């Protein structure tokens, strides 16, 4: 059952999330849980080596458990028993001796032996009537997984140690994985799961490297070292291509680069329609290092600064000083352009190991973002203080994510006022008129957007989550990802409602989801009358170019027509035809992924 290198040519189709064509070698990262390699051992030497490898993994796991225990804060030390019991399980004869026995007698590799021993324990525990005791199998599972990870860690270099430039092939990439990546060695990403807005997609766009997600079986079909062609614009992945194919893609690559550089030359100019309407084009960023690239691409400010990155490091929560110096730097570099800082949006698929978050059935609907912040005032206040302090170093705007009702807005603003008072008492200055806005990304907020306008200075429509919540599509579930449709008539109507309410109340409305950077959407977003679009920096030159090619009047007509259509497919088809007519040189399929 050993995984064999498959040299045969193979093509796959996934969801394109970050454009560009790359040709390079695959580097497989196995982060999914159950996928393990099953191997028979050939001779005694291999057997003793395998036992040693297993014992070594146990040793490492024990050390990790000890470290975890030592790092536990004093007040929760009472729970350290769980870690002690994990160490006992690790050394338990039912697990350890039986696995070693299997390696030696059945001549199978350590992973397989461990899995077999675990399955046997599970069978025994399943027969226990006492539910509390039979549930302890979870502890055994957790320990087994830790051992497994340490076993594979030996045969696979960690992401930090990649030496040559490769294409990362993974089941999924967590924010934690991407923080340890040696970015300069990564040509692109392809993953089994994920959709337009998965973390992998956002990461790839920020880094401007091609990515294709939702391939379902990439990790099963691709072997380490396979030659790959990845077209991040069409979602095509070719495994072990022939020469003709390589040449064909190289030509495509060249064409793509050529157009990119032609629009890049004028990207610093404003986005103004031929009839004189100017829409503000801003950038979304995830970390400080992106700011210079943002300027180079012609962004007129930061429309969304995602602040989770500093919270995802492995060592503890960031201090107020660390946050402050980070926000201050972004504000200073961008000044006089504005920077909208979104408060912590953790939870869901972004997981911080040092904040205790229970395992939730529906993390996207669970304790995250503003909900988590209101429940953990200490965490929230530290960030608010840092943002307020940074506000005097540029034009800073504050934005609360995941607002579902007015109550949350009022509570968050009250917290902000408390923090302001504290700063006043300490004699620390901040921008008293710092605009405060909210993300509109939950359908309930759309419905009551008229009520919300009275309490905030601006709206920013987060279409990524809005689509997910409105259409009930789990965007990381590869089986339904195809139903994640930005052009769904319901979504267009929701955006329309928010813009109308914003206009009535005289507050600015921005859109900061992936739709903002999708060139196909540009005409209708323009026609809707949005004040601002905030997108990944690399989309800016193209979107600006489209704005320059269409009159506001025409865009309005486009929207009026599109909003009457019945299905997402109809909308898409209309826009595609429209776009090809309007900008013929954009007709190339590769600019319109999907």
């Amino acid at each position, binding site marked *: 059952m050993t995984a064999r290198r498959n040299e045969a040519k193979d093509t796959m189709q996934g969801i394109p999330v970050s454009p560009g064509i790359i040709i390079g070698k695959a580097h497989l990262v196995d982060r999914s849980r159950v996928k393990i390699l099953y191997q028979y051992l050939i001779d005694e030497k291999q057997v003793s080596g395998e036992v040693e490898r297993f014992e070594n993994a146990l040793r490492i796991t024990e050390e990790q458990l000890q470290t975890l225990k030592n790092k536990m804060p004093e007040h929760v030390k009472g729970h350290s028993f769980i870690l*002690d019991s994990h160490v006992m399980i690790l050394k338990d*004869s039912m697990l350890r001796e039986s696995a070693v026995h299997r390696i030696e007698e059945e001549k199978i590799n350590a992973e397989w032996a461990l899995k077999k021993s675990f399955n046997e324990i599970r069978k025994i*525990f399943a027969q226990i009537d006492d539910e509390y*005791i039979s549930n*302890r199998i979870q502890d*055994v599972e957790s320990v087994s997984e830790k051992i497994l990870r340490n076993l594979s860690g030996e045969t696979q270099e960690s992401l930090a140690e990649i030496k040559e430039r490769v294409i990362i092939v993974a089941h999924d990439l967590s924010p934690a994985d991407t923080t340890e990546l040696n970015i300069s060695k990564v040509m692109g990403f392809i993953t089994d799961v994920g959709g337009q807005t998965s973390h992998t997609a956002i990461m790839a766009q920020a880094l401007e490297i091609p990515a294709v997600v939702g391939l379902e079986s990439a990790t099963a079909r691709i072997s380490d070292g396979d030659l790959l062609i990845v077209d991040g614009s069409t979602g095509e992945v070719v495994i072990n291509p022939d020469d003709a194919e390589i040449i064909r893609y190289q030509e495509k690559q060249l064409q793509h680069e050529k157009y990119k550089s032609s629009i890049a030359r004028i990207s610093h100019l404003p986005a103004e329609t031929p009839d004189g309407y100017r829409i503000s084009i801003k950038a979304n960023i995830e970390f400080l290092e992106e700011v210079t690239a943002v300027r180079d691409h012609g962004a007129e400010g930061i429309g969304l600064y995602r602040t989770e990155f500093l919270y995802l490091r492995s060592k503890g929560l960031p201090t107020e000083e660390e946050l402050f110096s980070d926000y201050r730097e972004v504000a200073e570099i961008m000044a006089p352009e504005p920077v909208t800082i979104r408060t912590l949006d953790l939870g869901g698929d972004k997981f911080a190991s040092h904040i205790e978050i229970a395992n939730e059935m529906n993390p996207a609907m669970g304790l995250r973002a503003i909900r988590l912040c209101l429940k953990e005032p200490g965490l929230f206040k530290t960030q608010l203080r840092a943002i307020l302090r940074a506000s005097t170093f540029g034009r800073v705007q504050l934005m609360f994510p995941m607002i579902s009702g007015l109550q949350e807005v009022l509570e968050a603003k009250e917290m902000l006022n408390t923090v302001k008072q504290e700063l006043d008492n300490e004699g620390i200055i901040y921008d008293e008129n710092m605009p405060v806005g909210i993300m509109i990304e939950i359908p309930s907020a759309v419905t009551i957007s008229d009520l919300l306008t009275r309490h905030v200075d601006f709206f920013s429509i987060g279409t990524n989550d809005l689509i997910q919540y409105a259409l009930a599509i789990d965007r990381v579930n590869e089986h339904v990802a195809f139903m994640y449709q930005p052009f769904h008539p319901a979504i267009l109507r929701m955006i329309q409602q928010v813009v109308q309410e914003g206009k009535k109340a005289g507050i600015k409305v921005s859109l900061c989801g992936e739709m903002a950077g999708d060139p196909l959407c540009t005409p209708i977003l323009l026609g809707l009358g949005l004040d601002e679009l905030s997108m990944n920096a690399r989309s800016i030159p193209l979107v600006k170019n489209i704005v320059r090619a269409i009159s506001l009047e025409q865009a309005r007509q486009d929207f009026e027509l599109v909003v009457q259509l019945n299905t997402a497919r109809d909308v898409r088809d209309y826009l595609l035809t429209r776009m090809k007519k309007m900008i013929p040189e954009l007709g190339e399929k590769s600019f319109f992924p999907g």
Partner: protein
Amino acid sequence: MNSCESTREEKKVLKIDNSLGLHARAAGKIVALANQYESKLFLRKDKEEVDGSSILSILTLSCPKGTEVEAKIVGEDSEVFMESLTELFANKFGEEA
């Protein structure tokens, strides 16, 4: 393993008196104790006998409050070991003051 002569062996029936029964934390305390002695501990409930240094095996005995188990300790320091073990059971595994 065991050298010449007859090996020392202690046997005693112990009652589980804490309200939670022989759950993970209590079993863990037995294992921790067993690790301090040279002698080997076996626990028997009905016909089933398990290794007293294996937390998983102890759990599989599934002993609620009131269960009686037979402890068998084999080895040189079996006597002192049995004393501490008896005390651990009598103290309800230190859980109920």
